[in-house]
């Protein structure tokens, strides 16, 4: 602590002479900004990064990956977690990591490779005394600063597959549409089953019997069609399609642990799909992906039909293929 203070002091002295050098000194995460009452105007205020534009995290901010990720138009996603020093992390329901107050989850969305890489937005989830708070930060053109954008934004960009899209930065409420459960904001991604066992151990000294059971997305061909599709549906759909969440009224429950075929959509009629149903009668028709509303909506780009409703503007060819393979292999009754 003392050493850090001295270093910071030195950095301040040299600031005028070598402004560029000052940022190299490892800064500390500002715990009070995380737990305070305000909505910080810039990402910089948290102090999560040494080089924010290079996404180089400071001490205590740990990068992580998920085995099967959420599809976001092919964006590169850089995930970090911060837990205040000396605080315990545990597991809650469904193996969701339980982070203490003062923790933060940070996710940056970027497009382009190498020198061409452009940071678009950084979303943060802050665990405050009164619960989790989700905030979106929008990067400027010069990549020098990310500012709070509670109302979100639209940005024209080209995906890795070459599709020109209008990319949607979610507004604060839209954050909750996916992160809302029983009325409160909650993290979704960091569940034991979708986190590598080695990372859990190395980061928090934790182990869990389900750790990493969801397939690594890039290795999904070696997983069963069911595991690959069910992991994909859990990660991409089940934050809304589950009891207590945004699409609970549909009666569709796509969580990994759900094993009732009807809840998973198999021969289930839609409730409020409207034109989203296309000309189909059931969510999932075993052996018939072409007659399944679930896949029909995932293959659409038309707002009002397309699923998920938020967080993507293009069809995920790989994800839909995994779901198609699963439905095709389901035994016809």
């Amino acid at each position: 602590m003392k050493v850090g203070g001295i270093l910071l002091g030195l950095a301040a002295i040299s600031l005028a002479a070598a402004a560029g050098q000052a940022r190299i000194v490892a800064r500390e995460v500002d715990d009070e900004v995380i737990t305070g009452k305000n909505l910080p105007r810039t990402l910089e205020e948290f102090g999560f990064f040494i080089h924010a534009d290079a996404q180089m995290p400071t001490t205590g901010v740990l990068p992580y990956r998920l085995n099967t990720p959420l599809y976001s138009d092919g964006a590169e996603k850089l995930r970090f977690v911060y837990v205040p020093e000396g605080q315990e992390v545990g597991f809650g329901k469904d193996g969701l990591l339980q982070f203490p107050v003062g923790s933060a989850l940070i996710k940056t969305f970027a497009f382009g490779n190498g020198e061409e890489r452009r940071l678009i937005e950084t979303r943060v989830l802050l665990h405050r005394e009164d619960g989790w708070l989700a905030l979106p930060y929008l990067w400027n053109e010069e990549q020098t600063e990310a500012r709070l954008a509670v109302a979100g934004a639209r940005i024209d960009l080209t995906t890795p597959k070459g599709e020109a899209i209008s990319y949607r930065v979610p507004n604060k409420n839209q954050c909750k549409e996916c992160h809302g459960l029983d009325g409160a904001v909650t993290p979704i991604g960091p569940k034991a089953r979708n986190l590598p066992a080695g990372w859990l151990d190395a980061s928090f000294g934790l182990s869990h019997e389900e750790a990493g059971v969801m397939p690594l997305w890039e290795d999904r061909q070696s997983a069963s069609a069911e595991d690959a599709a069910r992991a994909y549906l859990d990660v991409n759909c089940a934050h809304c399609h589950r009891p207590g969440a945004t699409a609970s009224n549909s009666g569709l429950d796509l969580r990994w642990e759900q094993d009732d075929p009807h809840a998973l959509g198999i021969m289930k009629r839609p409730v409020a799909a409207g034109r989203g149903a296309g000309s189909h009668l059931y969510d999932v028709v075993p052996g018939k992906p072409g007659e399944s509303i679930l896949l029909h909506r995932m293959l659409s780009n038309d707002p009002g039909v397309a699923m998920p409703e938020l967080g993507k503007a293009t069809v995920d060819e790989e994800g839909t293929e995994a779901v198609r393979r699963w439905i095709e292999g389901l035994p016809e009754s």
Partner: protein
Amino acid sequence: MKRIAIFAALLASASPLAAEVHTIIPGEGAQERLQEALILAEPGDEIVLSAGRYELTDGLSLDVDNVTLRGEGMDGTVLDFTSQAGAGEGLLVTSDNVTLRDFAVENPKGDGIKSKGADNIVYHRLRVTWTRGPHPENGAYAIYPVESTGVLVDGVKVTGASDAGIYVGQSDRITVRNSIAEANVAGIEIENSRNALVEHNIATRNTGGILVFDLPNLPVMGGGNVIVRNNLVVANDTPNFAPPGNIVAGVRRGTGIMVMANEDVLIEGNVLSGNPTAPVMVIAYVQPYDDERYNPLARNIVIGENAFEGGGYDPQLEGGEMLKAAFGGELPPVMWDGLGSLYVVEGTPGWTLNLTEQGKGLGAASPAPLTVEPPVDEFDASEIGAPAELEDRLG
């Protein structure tokens, strides 16, 4: 006295909880300005949408309790979603005690205004319109409260929904009144809900006017305790334009008031004219189902005095022409499938399919004139309708 007043004023201005009015004007950046106001509003605040047309590219959402969103008239303030690129509805409300009033939503890509888990909500003098008229690619629902307790819909106008104009689902303590539902597939639909009052509405040029449904396999089940009274249900003769696969795609053109499954429903004081399949239809759920919580029959459905002009003079039913001939040129106004229990006041003619079990179609019918008992007891209306205190937010 004076001192107290000054003190009160100081207190009001110093308190962060003092209600504020935020006024939004149309034009450049309206999407962000309006959404930001909806996010940063504090409980008690009012957001005023000045008259004009707001060109919006994304759905709006409100998640703060006790906020009023007010326009300057359903023809003055128009939220135009014609170029909407994302989100499943025009406006989504997920907080309690919200009042939406005096504005219009046009051409949303999905639903119009949806409120989910939003208790004690008031929809007042709103308009939701798909301007091209009936079309299968219009959004499903215009006004769409779901999973809520306390819903008051008053004085709204809905046109062009490819499912239901006013759809209340999986909710409790509901009033829908003084509203106009025109040229939707279903005008007004109450689904898997309890304690609903539907009165003083006009349902016209829909495929079906007013529907009271209970469906299986939903989180909230057991619809019932519904009153449909004093509505004008006229000329619901628009061909069904719902996308196939939706339950309302099975509604026959020319259905006036339809009850499917449900228990304890009273239909009285309505004027039913020009509903050529069936002015009133009472049937069980028709599909196979697998849900032990579910009762598919229509139980204790009460038809009181209604004014009928004509019956099923052009029924969209298999064998319709033969049926018409058998009943002397026109089907009587009340159609029942013969399952569950139905009570009809004396002097209202009807016919029954005389089905003996659920899930059988018209093929298993042995049609006959209706002979059922008149209602025995007074219908218990005590818990029906939106909580009275919601009235205070009108006017």
